[in-house]
């Protein structure tokens, strides 16, 4: 080092310390252990994730047949005759669509209010802790609560009423509504964070053009945070797709989609069904169906859907192109 040529008249650089103070061997042993644990934890997590995906992929692909994706399930003790899981796949998409259709406008509205209005301050705090409470409530609690509420007779239009007049309370609509509670906090969070990052002078620039606050929100702020809204929605979809408790309690978890009768679309919405999660649960060795091969195949399909959604989130939030297109 010290032999590096040095121009005449210049002093060679001072000899570096043989060991920077920061070198590993100079650390106290507690730090070294902690450092090792950090590494171990990171590697272990990677390994577990890889294990899950690989195991499910191997199991899933080996049992997955294209016919499973297009056949309705049949309640049969004979595994070869119990059909596929078309209905649960449809159910997953239907519940997710209902949940997001409710959650997206509500979540964005709450985020805009919290970020742009938030007066009086007490109410804003209340709204904030309300959102946090919903976010923290276990979905099984939400489901039980939903069953209680939707069994009230004035909400009978959301589900079916038995001959005796008891409101069933379980349907795609009721499950979707409660599912929306899972997605709302995520949409509020990501939208609000993005709104907070829009600099104040951008809003002022709009006001300075003689625009009202409402116009500014609609034409400037919401378009700027569109990628974040999208990623919030995608995260919310992941939550909904992955939830089991609400499906079991509020969707009826019937093997097939059972319409409630009446007008076709309404019959479907008021009817019961199942999703991939409940299908996996019922077919696992722990469930009633006990058809592990089908459970693995369905679980693999579920995993693929969720991983695809995650990839979309990463794309939306990472490859965020603020430039946007022509409006």
């Amino acid at each position, binding site marked *: 080092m010290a032999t590096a040529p040095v121009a005449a008249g210049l002093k060679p650089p001072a000899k570096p310390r043989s060991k920077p103070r920061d070198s590993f061997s100079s650390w106290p042993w507690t730090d070294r252990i902690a450092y090792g644990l950090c590494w171990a934890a990171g590697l272990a997590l990677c390994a577990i994730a890889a294990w899950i995906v690989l195991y499910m992929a191997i199991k899933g692909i080996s049992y997955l047949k294209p016919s499973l994706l297009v056949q309705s399930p049949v309640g049969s003790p004979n595994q070869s005759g119990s059909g596929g899981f078309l209905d649960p796949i449809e159910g997953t998409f239907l519940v997710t669509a209902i949940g997001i259709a409710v959650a997206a406008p509500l979540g964005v509205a709450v985020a805009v209010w919290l970020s742009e209005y938030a007066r009086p301050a007490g109410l804003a705090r209340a709204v904030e802790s309300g959102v946090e409470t919903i976010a923290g409530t276990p979905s099984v609690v939400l489901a039980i609560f939903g069953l209680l509420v939707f069994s009230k007779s004035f909400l009978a239009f959301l589900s079916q009423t038995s001959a005796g007049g008891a409101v069933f309370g379980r349907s795609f609509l009721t499950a979707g509504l409660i599912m929306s509670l899972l997605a709302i906090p995520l949409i509020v969070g990501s939208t609000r964070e993005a709104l907070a990052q829009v600099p104040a002078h951008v809003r002022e620039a709009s006001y300075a053009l003689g625009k009202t606050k409402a116009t500014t929100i609609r034409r400037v702020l919401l378009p700027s945070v569109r990628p974040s809204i999208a990623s919030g929605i995608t995260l919310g979809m992941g939550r909904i797709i992955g939830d089991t408790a609400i499906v079991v309690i509020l969707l009826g978890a019937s093997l097939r989609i059972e319409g409630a009768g009446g007008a076709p679309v309404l019959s479907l919405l008021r009817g019961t069904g199942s999703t991939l999660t409940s299908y996996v649960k019922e077919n696992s060795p722990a469930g009633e169906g006990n058809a592990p091969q089908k459970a693995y195949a369905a679980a693999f399909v579920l995993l693929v859907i969720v991983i695809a959604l995650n990839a979309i989130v990463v794309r939306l939030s990472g490859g965020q192109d603020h*430039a946007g297109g022509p409006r």
Partner: protein
Amino acid sequence: MTPLTPPPARRILVDGEPTLIDPPVRGTMEPPSLSANARNGRGRAPAEQVTERMRIESVSLAYGEKWVVRDVSLPVRQGEVLALIGASGSGKTTLLRSLNRLTEITTGASRAGRVTLDGEEIEQIEVNDLRRRVSMVFQQPNPFPMSIFENVAYALREEHAARRDRQRRGRRGRRELEPAVIDAVRRAGLYDEVADDLDRPALRLSGGQQQRLCIARALAAGPEVLLLDEPCSALDPISTATIEELIVGLRERVAIVIVTHNLQQAMRVADHVAFMHLGELVEYGTSEQVFERPAMERTREYISGAFG
């Protein structure tokens, strides 16, 4: 309501390094040759027609208990550029923002005194109308996340939707807006660079182009007064020169008020200069007067770089 602390001009001189620059001898202050350039370039001669658009009469502004601007009176005229100069915290920007009542969105801001636009007190004008008539460009270029065309059309569109008598609630079509948009972009000196693709996202433009787009946007609504808050401070020298040229060209059709930290810039673009210090207007005059024969000691210190 604490009384203002005595002006610290002297204290600054004492605290700072003893300045080696001789106090400029009155009348011979020639160091920035730019001043000469400016004079040769376009002549200090004011535009043919100078009309007063706004009048600021003993305006004071405060945020909560803190006075930011104290008893300032200034005329704002079309046909000339008024530059507000002064150190940070001297209240220039606050004064500027009060002209289109943008100070009102800051909680706790209060104002005393009168500001009139064409003889009408600005309190009496509906605030969004006022802001259309007194438009503003900010320090950071801040185009909206839409196309170049839409950025300018945004300024035009709801202007008409808001006028109930027109009853044109629907979006005006692109064809209808196009001439006005192109005219604004052209006035902002941006048209040649973007003519081929007005649908390009505005955020893909360079910083200087973005700022000119912001000027185009501000011009689109047809304002009488254009407020510029350090419009070049985030830009490189070439973009700055382009925008300065643009500002000088625009003064015929709109009254321009520019806040700037850059004294050379004030010299280059301004016809009148107001020097503010700690919220007070220290000196107001033509830029020759202020830069070459400042009447006040503090102005002289500031423009010779003694403080600020």
